[in-house]
């Protein structure tokens, strides 16, 4: 890229501040608004405004600047709450920055969610037109691409059916297909690939790289690090609203993964869940503490080798007497994929009776067979079949290389390891004919 061409997209010290407290809970009645106005004045009179106001707001983005050249596919990575979505919302004009500016030199279309504006009562055909128009296509343009959109989505037979009768897969395919046929100069994409079946995800990735090779500028946010590495040349890493890295996609992904494991302190086999950042409280913050142990009940202070024992003790509280409660622990790998879910429901043998107050659930995994890497834990508590408390990224564990197979050879690939056997023999002459399920490898 030559230096005298102005960038197609330029972010200049973009910042966004959100207010916490009542205003952040989003809905305010007129009376509350007046009350807030009056209390604000009282506070100003008593001279504590500055600090109180600072505590009630936070910067979702702070001084983020970078340029994107024409035809470049740039990835934006960061943890939940790092400011990625806010950044995309500003660039796609949904919300204003609090400070700074964004300059766009081309027609922009944004895709923050597939199927925005789809109406369940309308048919597939009607939704293609409506959704296309909402995404900024002209009617003539949609008509021209209509057949292509339908073919890509593989929904020919259901064009006259209201989309409320579609399966999730069909719905997502149709929605993505409309979006994939947009022809803006700048395309902004958020997490759309997290949906649909695997085959369709691959097709989407194919379509996306087609788009990027077509000289289109793409801003791409994803938790799927493989997709970022595959599609983007360059990437930026956001952390707590600030830009912490800008460079090649490969280095950015590495930087992101490193930051993730740094976030977990060293001697952290006890995690105070009351301090958890990513908590979704439904009933009350009932999850209190998490303790991690490995073989022979030793506290887990650093990484855990492949195949070692992992014992989790979760301290929690039941607010009222109940017989029906369960706990789930989900393990996500660094690519945001759920690798395994442990759930107390699968182990229903528990002394009968009602429980109330402080309790401890122990989940013992005799052999943790994930491949090496970082895993984030989500913990949730269900009371009477409904979610009561949930914590995302409650802690991270690092699985270390080990001689799992006992052969001196370390597993290096895939997602999990499992005990397996190989046997070698000579081919039986008639076997290939007799059994059509046997595939010959050439």
């Amino acid at each position, binding site marked *: 890229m030559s230096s005298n061409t102005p960038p197609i997209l330029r972010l200049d010290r973009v910042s966004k501040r959100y207010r916490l407290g009542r205003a952040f809970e989003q809905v305010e009645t007129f009376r509350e608004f007046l009350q807030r106005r009056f209390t604000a004045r009282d506070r100003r009179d008593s001279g504590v405004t500055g600090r109180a106001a600072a505590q009630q707001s936070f910067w979702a983005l702070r001084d983020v600047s970078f340029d994107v050249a024409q035809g470049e596919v740039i990835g934006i990575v960061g943890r939940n709450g790092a400011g990625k979505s806010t950044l995309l919302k500003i660039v796609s004009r949904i919300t204003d920055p609090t400070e700074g500016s964004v300059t*766009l030199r*081309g027609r922009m279309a944004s895709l923050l969610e597939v199927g*925005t*504006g789809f109406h369940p009562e309308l048919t597939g055909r*009607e939704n293609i037109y*409506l959704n296309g128009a909402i995404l900024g296509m002209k009617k003539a343009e949609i008509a021209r691409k209509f057949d292509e959109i339908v073919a890509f989505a593989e929904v020919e037979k259901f064009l006259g059916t209201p989309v409320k009768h579609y399966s999730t897969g069909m719905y997502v395919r149709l929605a993505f297909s409309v979006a994939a046929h947009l022809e803006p*100069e700048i395309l902004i994409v958020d997490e759309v690939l997290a949906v649909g079946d695997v085959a369709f995800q691959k097709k989407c990735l194919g379509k996306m790289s087609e788009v990027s090779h077509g000289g289109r500028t793409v801003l791409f946010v994803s938790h799927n690090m493989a997709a970022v590495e595959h599609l983007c040349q360059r990437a930026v890493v956001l952390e707590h609203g600030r830009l912490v890295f800008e460079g090649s996609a490969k280095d950015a992904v590495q930087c992101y993964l490193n930051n993730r494991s740094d976030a977990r302190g060293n001697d952290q086999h006890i995690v105070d869940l009351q301090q958890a950042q990513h908590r979704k409280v439904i009933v009350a913050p009932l999850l209190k503490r998490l303790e991690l142990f490995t073989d022979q009940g030793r506290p887990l202070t650093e990484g855990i080798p492949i195949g070692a024992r992992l014992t989790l003790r979760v301290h929690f509280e039941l607010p009222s007497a109940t017989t029906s409660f369960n706990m789930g622990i989900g393990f996500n790998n660094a690519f945001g994929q759920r690798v395994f879910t442990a759930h107390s429901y699968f182990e229903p043998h528990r002394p009968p009776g009602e429980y109330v107050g402080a309790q401890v659930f122990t989940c013992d995994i005799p052999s943790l067979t994930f491949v090496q890497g970082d895993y984030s834990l989500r913990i949730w508590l269900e009371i009477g079949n409904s979610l009561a408390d949930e914590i995302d990224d409650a802690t991270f564990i690092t699985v270390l290389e080990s001689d799992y197979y006992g052969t001196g050879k370390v597993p290096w690939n895939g997602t999990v390891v499992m005990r397996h056997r190989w046997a070698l023999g000579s081919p039986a002459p008639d076997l290939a004919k007799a059994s059509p399920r046997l595939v010959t490898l050439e």
Partner: protein
Amino acid sequence: MSSFELTIRPHKGWQPINFREIALYRELLAFLVWRDVKIRYRQTVLGGLWAVLQPLIAMYIFTFVFHRLAGVQSDGPPYPLFAFAGLAPWIFFSTSVQQSSNSLVANQQLVSKIYFPRLFIPLGAIGALLLDLLLSLCLFALLLLFYRWPISVEILWLPVFIAAALLAASGVGMTLSALNVKFRDIKYAVPFAIQMGIFVTPVIYPMRYIPDRWQWLMGLNPMVGVVLGFRHALLGSALAWPVVMVSLCSSLMLFILGLLIFARMERMFADVI
């Protein structure tokens, strides 16, 4: 690279209205109207008949209660026709205000996930209701035949007063939809205000029931001019121009005010909704 260039920066206070962008997206407004028309009567047995049934049933009930029981007289034409000519624009206005004031909140997903002129959301809801108004006017033509009441040349005024009804509904609709994003009180206030509104608009009674010295005050109500205008155009009733002019100006002012309030509040929709 296209010559298109756009800078996104913080906006504070009153904003100019971006007519260029509205023109650029005009097809989308048509699509949103079309969507609302399509889904309004989906999965109903009577479908579009609802558009004409409401004013028709209201006409008979009003005739019975206010004309027969309370003795309210029309200003010339049979009372049912008199009532219908007022009810048609009133129902359009009241339904428009109710639907548009709730439209942004009902379309939260659009507001927080994609950019286009948000003005189209309340306006689209109103545009779709215009079809209902036209359908009820077709029914009115049949009622004219039934009651043998002549069509006068004043019918030519009808488009003007339909436009006035649109202005009034849009002005109120834009303002309330924007306020409703921040203050959900609007949701509770609107149905009540609409119920009361019919009594300060000459829908049930003719204008001569109002003392002369208070007529100008009535004129501040934008729907007074619309209802009187509809009666003039549809039934040939005499028109009190001064009151109507005051009322039309009031519609226009409301519309401009609505546009300005909407443009001012638009920038915080996605953060607050």
